[in-house]
């Protein structure tokens, strides 16, 4: 189901209501007007008859009646037609003036003139009514339409005004990111519900930011605090290995050495992540990626030698980017070492620069990585690997803060990490 805007929803129901009202009101109104007009006409007919009776017409003789009939077109007195009480009928009669049949209301009423019974017939043309009913109906409808349009317009305007703080709040929350230092600034509102909404959002955000901050600080502090014991550990191992050790002891100390440097690396990576979080790396320079890769290629070739991995470079163009140079270097180093670490013996690493994209394509395990969580901290693909599960998280984080795009794909047994600058 497609989502509709709130304001559209309210005006939509208004519009539907208006159309229904118009469609039903028009015929009802037309017939009501017509009925009223006929009712009024009938009243007039009866009134005329009453007046006729009251105004001593009863003294008319036959000649008077003939004269009356001669000069009155609409009222005729005819000999008794057997009408016993007033009755009004609608009839289509021929109208000489317009040369066509027109609707009439005709009153037949029994009257007594000079003690003799007659029938009073009065007819009234309803042609005027048609026009009048139409114009009244039209005017009325016109007013209704104006009224509806006005109501819709005003309600739309006022709804927009009423909902403005809501939309304001909405866009503020949409822009909010907990790891950036930009708490939303809600504008004050006099609507109680929105005020409550803003206040609870503020509380929620404040609390979460606090938790987030303390967690971030915890990671940083923990990593910092670990440095001293690690230093003690390291120097003691350095001292220990100077002693006269048996082969067995040497092997143990060697293993310890590996462990401590692994621990050290993990700690440094955690520190790096929390430093990125804390926006330590804010300076931006222009970095030429080709140059950096070329400059350090020897180091990586050296690292790749143990697995006899071949490194190829395909630079289609010079790729310049703006970013923190230290972090960009960390990004490339991590991509590089990642491609070496997860490679196979006699494997290949292709580094491609094309337009604004940098790709590391490498051979490796024959199965694709789980793209959705490889960038999470401590999501190790291969539990036996020496990696500490932070390399890709660091890559992701660096891309995030620079608004670069990082993608992973697997095709033809090749793993590709692509950064789009």
């Amino acid at each position, binding site marked *: 189901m497609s989502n509709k805007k709130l304001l559209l929803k309210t005006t939509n129901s208004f519009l539907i209501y208006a159309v229904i009202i118009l469609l039903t009101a028009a015929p009802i109104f037309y017939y009501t007007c017509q009925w009223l007009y006929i009712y009024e006409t009938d009243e007039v007919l009866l009134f005329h008859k009453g007046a006729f009776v009251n105004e001593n017409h009863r003294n008319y003789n036959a000649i008077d009646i003939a004269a009356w009939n001669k000069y009155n077109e609409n009222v005729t007195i005819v000999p008794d037609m057997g009408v016993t009480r007033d009755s009004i009928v609608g009839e289509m009669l021929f109208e000489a003036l317009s040369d066509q049949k027109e609707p009439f209301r005709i009153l037949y009423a029994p009257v007594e003139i000079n003690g003799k019974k007659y029938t009073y017939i009065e007819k009234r043309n309803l042609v005027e009514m048609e026009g009048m009913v139409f114009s009244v109906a039209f005017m009325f409808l016109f007013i209704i339409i104006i009224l509806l349009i006005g109501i819709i317009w005003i309600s739309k305007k006022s709804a927009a005004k009423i909902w403005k703080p809501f939309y304001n709040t909405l866009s503020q929350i949409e822009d909010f990111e907990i790891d950036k230092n930009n708490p939303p600034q809600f504008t004050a509102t006099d609507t109680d519900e929105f005020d409550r909404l803003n206040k609870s959002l503020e509380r929620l955000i404040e609390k979460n930011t606090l938790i987030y901050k303390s967690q971030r600080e915890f990671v940083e502090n923990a990593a910092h605090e670990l440095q001293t014991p690690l230093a003690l550990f390291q120097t003691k191992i*350095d*001292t220990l290995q100077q002693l006269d050790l048996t*082969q067995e002891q040497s092997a143990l100390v*060697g293993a310890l050495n590996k462990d401590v440097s692994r621990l050290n690396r993990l700690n440094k990576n955690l520190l790096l992540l929390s430093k990125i979080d804390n926006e330590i790396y804010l300076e931006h320079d222009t970095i030429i990626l080709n140059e950096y890769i070329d400059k350090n290629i020897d180091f990586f070739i050296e690292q790749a030698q143990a697995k006899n991995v071949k490194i190829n470079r395909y630079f289609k163009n010079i790729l310049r980017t703006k970013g923190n140079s230290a972090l960009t270097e960390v990004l490339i180093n991590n991509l590089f070492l990642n491609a070496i670490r997860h490679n196979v013996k006699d494997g290949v690493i292709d580094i491609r620069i094309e337009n604004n994209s940098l790709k590391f394509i490498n051979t490796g395990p024959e199965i694709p990585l789980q793209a959705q969580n490889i960038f999470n901290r401590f999501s190790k693909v291969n539990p036996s690997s*020496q990696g500490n599960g932070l*390399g890709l998280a660091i890559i992701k984080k660096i891309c995030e803060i620079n608004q670069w795009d990082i993608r992973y794909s697997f095709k033809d047994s090749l793993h590709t990490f692509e950064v789009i600058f």
Partner: protein
Amino acid sequence: MKILIIEDEREISQSIKNYFKTNGIQCETAENYNLALTKINSYDYDCILLDLMLPDGDGFDILKELKAKNKTEGVIIISAKENLETRLEGFKLGADDYLTKPFHLAELLVRMQALIRRKNFKGSNNVIFNEIVVEIFSKTVSVNDIKLDLTKKELDLLLFLIGNENKVLSKSAIAEHLSGDMADMLDNHDFIYAHIKNLKKKLTQAGSGDYIKTVYGLGYKWENEQ
């Protein structure tokens, strides 16, 4: 040679002291700011190792004090603080080197030797071990006056080994020394094997003694032949 270690972690300063002792370096220690101030005002040292976080003061103030007194001691900051600002501030105040904790004692030793060499530089700046002569300035190595063609890494490795004479060097210490800034990311230290092998070959081919010994399970050792 006499150095001062200003470090509140007594165990660290003791380890440094023990490690350096066999290389003929005399170490004095100061666990706090006040003691450190008294010592630098009373004696001259060849080098000072300075921790920035002291219980009763800031290591930077010691740098300021040295500067104010026109003291010429070389200073290596050893600190758990690892950020560019602290580093730059340290250099600005006159520190010569900066080593982040944790570090290998071997690394600290060669850094200190390099610093002292730079400080005492009087025309010649050579490292000599029996028939091997390393000219630091021109970056050349010769064995019995025959020049050797060493890569930058091999030269680095040679200086690291000679500097830590008679010390067992772990693979990680060597790897971290050779890879510099990249060290924090390396999870495999096997690449040093190739460098050791090449260096050994080049030295012995030039007629030098075979000083590089492999220590089983641990690493390598530069040892004068008996």
